[in-house]
């Protein structure tokens, strides 16, 4: 469409990040450099994941339209590296739990936004052709911000030594949900043949549920001792 449309999509995708950064008090902690470091870690982890996938997962050669269930599952398993990466970022930062989580999640999500959404928006939303998918992509980036904050929180809880035994199971389940969320979404889409807006809605609801659960656990854990 036009540059104006690109501006719309860009604002929709980036402003929530900016607002979150400003309002969560990260700017007062002078945490920008730390966020950039987290982003660099993101890049490093993605590079490792790509190398690993390219080496051990040959391209699926089945017929078109056939869903490679096992293959996709194994690929999602590689996303466990994200958890390691987040842990790495948080372990290198000293500070309160919220601060560590926010820095890791912000850096991580922003790096993803810049790397995987910025260019498609620049190329696609500015082109002549109008497509709702750029607006959807921008909404999706908002969802993934929430997703990474929840994921960082769960990782932080999981790696605590003083995690009560009763928390172990729900936290592990949440971790698994976080990692396999994209896989589950793909499966949903494949089984129920959803439209793109419905997919976005389902994704938002699922992410919302996961984050709410992790918020409950987090609040309970933080205020229990």
């Amino acid at each position, binding site marked *: 469409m036009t540059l104006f*449309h690109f501006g719309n999509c860009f604002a929709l995708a980036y402003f929530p990040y900016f607002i979150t950064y400003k309002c969560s008090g990260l700017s007062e902690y*002078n945490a*920008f450099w730390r966020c950039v470091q987290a982003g660099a870690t993101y*890049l490093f982890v993605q590079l490792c994941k790509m190398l690993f996938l390219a080496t051990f997962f040959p391209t699926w050669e089945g017929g078109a339209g056939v869903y490679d269930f096992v293959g996709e599952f194994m690929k999602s398993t590689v996303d466990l590296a994200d958890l390691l990466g987040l842990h790495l970022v948080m372990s290198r930062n000293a500070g309160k739990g919220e601060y560590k989580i926010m820095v890791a999640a912000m850096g991580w999500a922003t790096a993803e936004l810049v790397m995987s959404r910025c260019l498609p928006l620049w190329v696609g939303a500015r082109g002549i052709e*109008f497509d709702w998918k750029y607006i959807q992509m921008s909404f999706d980036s908002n969802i993934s911000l929430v997703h990474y904050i929840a994921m960082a929180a769960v990782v932080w809880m999981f790696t605590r030594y003083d995690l009560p035994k009763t928390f172990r199971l729900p936290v592990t389940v949440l971790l698994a949900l976080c990692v396999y969320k994209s896989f589950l979404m793909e499966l949903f889409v494949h089984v129920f043949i959803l439209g793109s807006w419905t997919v976005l809605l389902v994704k938002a609801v699922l992410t919302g549920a996961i984050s709410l659960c992790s*918020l409950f656990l987090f609040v309970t854990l933080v205020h229990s001792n």
Partner: protein
Amino acid sequence: MFEEASEVFDNMFKSSFPLTFIVFIPAVLILVSPLPAEAAHEFTVYRMQQYDLQGQPYGTRNAILNTEARTVEAEVLSRRCVIMRLADFSYDKYQKALRQSAGAVVITLPKNMSAMPQDIVQQFMELEPEMLATETIVPVYFAMEDDELLSIYTQTLTSSSSQGSLSAAEVLLHTATANGFQMVTSGAQSKAVNDWAITSLEGRLAGVGGEDLPTIVIVSHYDSFGVAPWLSYGADSNGSGRTHAGYNLLFFVSGGGKFNYQGTKRWLEENLDHTDSSLLQDNVAFVLCLDTLGNGDSMHLHVSKPPKEGTPQYSLLKELETVVNSQYPEVKFSMVHKKINLADDMLAWEHERFGIRRLPAFTLSHLASHRLAERSSIMDSRPHVDVNKLSRNTKVVAEALARVIYNLTEKGAPGDLQIFTEQMQVQEEQLSAVVDWLTAQPRAAQLLDKDSSVVSTLEYHLGRYLKDVKRHYVKADKRDPEFVFYDQLKQTMNAYRVKPAIFDLLLAVCIAAYLGVMYLAILNFGVLYSVVRRITQPKAKVYFSVAV
């Protein structure tokens, strides 16, 4: 924040090379990667004719198109691309679009032309010359209809026709849901093609008795014509003017026939003015031009001067009548007399070229008048030729010629004597194959250069029956060209889905509202936090009490 950022980048460059590497190599790779060409629909379009004849411009003068699509029903058409379907096409609508200074006209043709009602086809055929007669500034394109194109047309139609009668709210809703289409052609502006050579072929059968024998010249042109060159298959006109019999027989297959018989003209000039001895120069009995013989139950012999009794032309006329009357009574044969109009830009029939040079000549065709649109229409395709009729017409011509050549009537042969029997029969299968092959590709003069397969195959076919097959090339004069052709006749057009500017504004307002809500939500995250805490606290107490 930005100072922080620049500081960070400074540090990054100075301190850690690997980090720079990781960040910038992907960035560079991404930036240089080619942009994908995404379009809602991509289709091939064929441009209307563009040529100059004797300094007079004809057809569309433009090839570039980048405008929004509309149908004729829309109120404002200026600088829009007007899409019309063949079924709804009329000259009034076409003129309306041009009067309102439309940016372009795209006419969609159905895939299956033969399924169209005959009156529409007829009407369009009559309009074709009118569209070409005047110079059109804006590009005019033809496209083959498919499902995608049809859906684009329908969507454009709904958005074009519903405007003006709705309330503001409805219009707003409409802009959000309906699609507009931006039509863009990928090619460059059309340019004149220099040094385009029109090829003509000549072959002869010598009679016994050397050069002094009178000569019969049989002429037909092989190029086709239509409103769009790439759609000109010209099955009947003039894929059907091709036949095979002591007179010298000179066969000539000319090019550029639809452009005032350029091939014939040059050939005549060469033979009459420049060469010393030529079959044409002395003792030509008559010139028979064949044009449009592939259909119809009537044959018309077009002459510019009624032949006098006792001349070879007159005997051919008589023989044709005899053959038709005695052997093929279903054919109506007549002679049409039309004087050459030298004031006219275009010559009507090919024989007039010879008539001007004082050679006795006439044209044989199933059309009663040169103005009939069948001779220059894109609707003239393979189903238009009836091979049975073509072969019958071929037989009539061959029988009559043979009777003139061997002087059979004077020798007392009966009228129903068939000369071409058994092995000399016209082979329908072969004829049908030749017509099929000729109509399998567009044969507009602009598309046939000297290396084209049409010309070389024709040459080969002539070579099988005739001797001394020669090529003649016509090139337009550099300084004062008689004909100029233009390129960019076939292009790819993209239809991009677009939204009006008001939609962007609407979207911006919605996004601003959404971001406002997000801002408030993040600002008041503490509320949610305390709510969650209040819910979890009793549970925590219970948990602790249990633990204790």
